[in-house]
């Protein structure tokens, strides 16, 4: 796989050359997880199995037969992916204590390549939310809240104010995975992306967040939110790493009938030097209400960057963008209502003690197992699916969805290669401020820039761009053509190189053995 660029320090190379062993790497990560526990990024840490996997990896390296670039690399997986023998909770009471008998295809692929699975990361319950604040295990804290960069810029409102209460959210719903990667506890993490759930926390946590084309990566074993929009998401510290992980995960899965049959060939990203043949589209509708002036300026600066490097930068229009949020909410609620119907307490998961009748047991189980957000979406979803409402809501939303997807088709057909947009409306807000509005309001606000790519099934990636005035990460999003991940990531990599996003300065990381941690401190593993 990708072992290019001698100047960059690579963990994979280090492992191969024996400068560090998988066990050492694993132990360091586990230790760092413990010392960053206050981030609440992990729900389950699989210490024993991880160390065993590291041992096995070490044996392979000693024999000179590593399985590939991912062999021995510590990774984390969002807790809505099935992992055999390790609890899968979806941050919900409904699945607390649930131990799945099978691995999601993507998890199996990582394990088959020798990756070391450190644990399951925290999320909004059943991936519903944009803050990673609404799970039963509590909210995830953005590691940047504890960074020197943020602390330097934050002005305490009062002397006695608890510093702790100023922490900012990760964004969501894959906040745990984003925080895990951002705080160096793992080298790559899996998230999921239905309306922006990988890109949004990636932007807030200053990491690369890739949403692949729908149908490229198997969803078998990913507990679904919206089957027609969900994709497994990839979070890493640099674009090259995302390409490596993508290479190990993509391809047809007979167990998932929505994956494409075409052969997928993993690729290495070229080092783009000449962007003059590129056409970058700037969709004007993405100058959305509420977009911070800071991000607007950054977006503009990025466009100029491309222009000055010789690329063609043009304004384009995706006229149906303004309808995507309501459309998404109807379709999402409808699928949620359907997907959650299986949680009745009979076969697995939480079962209420109420046993007067099957119906009463179902009702009590579901009331006890689901939080308000999930129940709200189930109720509205069932409403939209009622016979008398189906045409006006569900079918109408599907039609609007087609219009939104066609907007992209038209733009890409007109010669535009890549779209450049902001990922979020602002940098990460403090938790105390975030929870002032309810989940639904927040989701509607925060999904607006990321959501349309899910409607259209297109690949999109967040690239950390710069720090805000508050010292927090801001990212920009690139959206590409269906199944053109190579082009998308090549452009993203070029951009990443130009902006040189700063590394997070975390005390906890510094406190660890400096020598041993050099590997982690560099952004990448590949």
């Amino acid at each position, binding site marked *: 796989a990708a072992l290019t660029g001698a100047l960059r320090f690579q963990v994979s190379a280090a492992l191969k050359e024996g400068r560090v062993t998988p066990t050492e790497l694993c132990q360091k990560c586990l230790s760092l997880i413990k010392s960053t526990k206050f981030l609440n990024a992990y729900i389950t840490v699989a210490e024993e199995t991880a160390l065993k996997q590291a041992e096995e990896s070490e044996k392979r390296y000693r024999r000179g037969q590593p399985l590939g670039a991912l062999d021995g690399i510590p990774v984390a997986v969002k807790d809505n*992916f*099935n992992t055999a023998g390790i609890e*899968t909770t*979806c941050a919900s009471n409904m*699945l607390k204590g649930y131990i*799945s*008998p*099978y691995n*999601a295809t993507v998890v199996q692929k990582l394990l088959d390549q020798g990756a070391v699975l450190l644990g399951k990361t925290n999320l909004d319950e059943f991936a519903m939310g944009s803050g990673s604040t609404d799970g039963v295990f509590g909210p995830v804290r953005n590691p940047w809240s504890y960074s020197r960069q943020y602390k330097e810029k934050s002005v305490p409102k009062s002397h006695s104010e608890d510093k702790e209460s100023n922490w900012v959210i990760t964004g969501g719903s894959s906040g745990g995975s984003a925080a895990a990667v951002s705080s160096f506890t793992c080298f790559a993490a899996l998230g999921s992306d239905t309306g922006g759930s990988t890109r949004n926390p990636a932007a807030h946590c200053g990491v690369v967040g890739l949403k692949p084309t729908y149908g490229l990566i198997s*969803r*078998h*074993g*990913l*507990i*679904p939110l*919206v*089957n*027609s929009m969900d994709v497994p998401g990839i979070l890493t510290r640099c674009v090259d790493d995302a390409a490596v992980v993508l290479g190990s995960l993509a391809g047809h899965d*007979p*167990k*998932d*009938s*929505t994956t494409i049959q075409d052969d997928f060939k993993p690729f290495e990203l070229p080092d783009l030097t000449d962007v003059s043949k590129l056409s970058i589209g700037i969709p004007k509708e993405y100058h959305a209400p509420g977009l911070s002036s800071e991000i607007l300026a950054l977006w503009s600066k990025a466009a100029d960057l491309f222009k000055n490097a010789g690329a063609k930068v043009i304004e384009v229009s995706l006229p149906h963008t303004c309808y995507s949020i309501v459309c998404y909410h109807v379709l999402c609620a*409808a*699928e949620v*209502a*359907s997907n*959650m*119907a*299986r*949680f*009745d307490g*009979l*076969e*697995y998961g939480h079962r209420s003690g109420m046993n007067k009748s*099957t*119906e009463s047991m*179902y009702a009590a189980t579901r009331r006890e197992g689901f939080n308000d957000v999930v129940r709200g979406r189930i109720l509205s979803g*069932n409403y939209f*699916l*009622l*016979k008398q409402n*189906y045409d006006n809501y*569900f079918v109408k939303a599907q039609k609007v969805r087609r219009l939104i997807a066609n907007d992209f088709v038209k733009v890409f057909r007109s010669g535009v290669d890549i779209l450049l947009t902001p990922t979020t409306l602002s940098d990460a807000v403090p938790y105390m401020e975030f929870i002032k509005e309810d989940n639904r309001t927040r989701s509607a606000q925060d999904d607006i820039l990321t959501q349309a790519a899910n409607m259209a099934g297109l690949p999109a990636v967040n690239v950390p761009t710069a720090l805000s005035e508050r010292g927090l990460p801001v990212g920009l999003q690139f959206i590409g053509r269906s199944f053109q991940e190579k082009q998308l990531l090549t452009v993203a990599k070029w951009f990443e190189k130009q902006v040189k996003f700063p590394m997070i300065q975390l005390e906890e990381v510094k406190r660890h053995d400096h020598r041993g941690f050099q590997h982690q401190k560099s952004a990448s593993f590949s």
Partner: protein
Amino acid sequence: LAPWVPVVGLEIHAQISSNSKLFSGSQVQFAAPPNSLVSFFDASLPGTLPVLNRRCVEAAVMTGLALNCSINKKSLFDRKHYFYADLPAGYQITQQRVPIAVNGSLSYSLCIDNKLSQMVTKTVRIKQIQLEQDSGKSLHDDTRSQTLVDLNRAGVGLMEVVMEPDLCCGEEAAAAVRELQLILQTLGSSQAVMAEGQLRVDANVSVHHPGEPYGVRTEVKNINSIRFLAKAVDYEIQRQIEELENGGTILNETRAFDSKLGCTVSMRDKEGKQDYRFMPEPNLPPLILYDAKSLPANMNHQQVVNIDWIHERLPDLPSVKRAKLVEQYGILPEHSFTLLNEDGLTEFFENVVQRTPMKPQKVIGWILKDLLSYLKQHSLTVKESPVSSSLLADLLNLLEKKEISSTAAKQVLAELWKGEGKTPLEIVTEKKLELMQDQKELEEICQAVIDGQENEVIMMVLG
């Protein structure tokens, strides 16, 4: 009193005969230990996805072709939602919007006035055939206040055959279902044994006066045999007529057939009408079928279902088989019906015909009168018959060669039934049933009889 026109429409669920289930790889098997044939998908474990079973698609296409349907080259899957203990996912995957086959017909025959010799052919239109999942089974244990759930059957493939309401009585319903059963068994797309739940029939019944709009219909369920189907339908028609003539009304409800009492009973559901909140199944792309014309050149034969390929390989349907039997053996049409109606009887008949020079038109009498009546008397299937086709052929050969009389042959058959392993020849020898061939010996016997009955002979000669 104004006449009543009964209207009967049937919905038939036929379990597909396949090794594994419609959307998962777990096995299909009757009467296995509870919950021993349940895959992760069948148990609705979160994150599992349906994968369509090719064999089930082929079975549905075969059935559609045999029923003269148009096969939809593109059909869709939907979710039908309701909560029940035997439906783990909270929804059934079915085909509500665009099913796999539509607009067919089924021809069946009826005897007029129970006279087998007067058969008339009728047709019922097939509205559609759809693929869908079977549910699990739930057993209510009232003594212990619990419900036991067995998911072995959950996810097994079903073909739902929906008929237009062209039938008018129990007899027609029974005959139509019987013919459908034979067709399915001939195709092998379903074993269609009602007793094993492989064929389930629900009847929609209503009555109205000629010229007036259709009446309110009831749905009758829990019909466990073809015989009970006829009874249930006729009972319900009668019940509705009586109710209406007494000034009552018919409720649009579901009723269960009680076979012991021979009547239908209201299954009054406290819930009222269900809204199934149909939604497209997002995990299954549209089902695309090909024919010789539309099949792309580079397509892997293994990856597609070719309707024409299946059509070419359809076996002879019952109606064709019957016509061939009549033509080949010179038997009557009603004979061919009986032959096909008994599992294995046609084969038995043909085996006998092959082994004896006796004319098939004579052999058929032995098959349908003697053999079949013995089987029915002892409740045996053809396969269980103690008299094999070769044994019967041997016997008929003796008869044909005039070595025994037909009376004697019946006696030999009675002996053969005991299944003691003796051949017909051995029994004939044992019981001295041979026809005498010696002319002189015969004369001597006749003379002896006449001599012993002098008076009677004189009376006869005198007239």
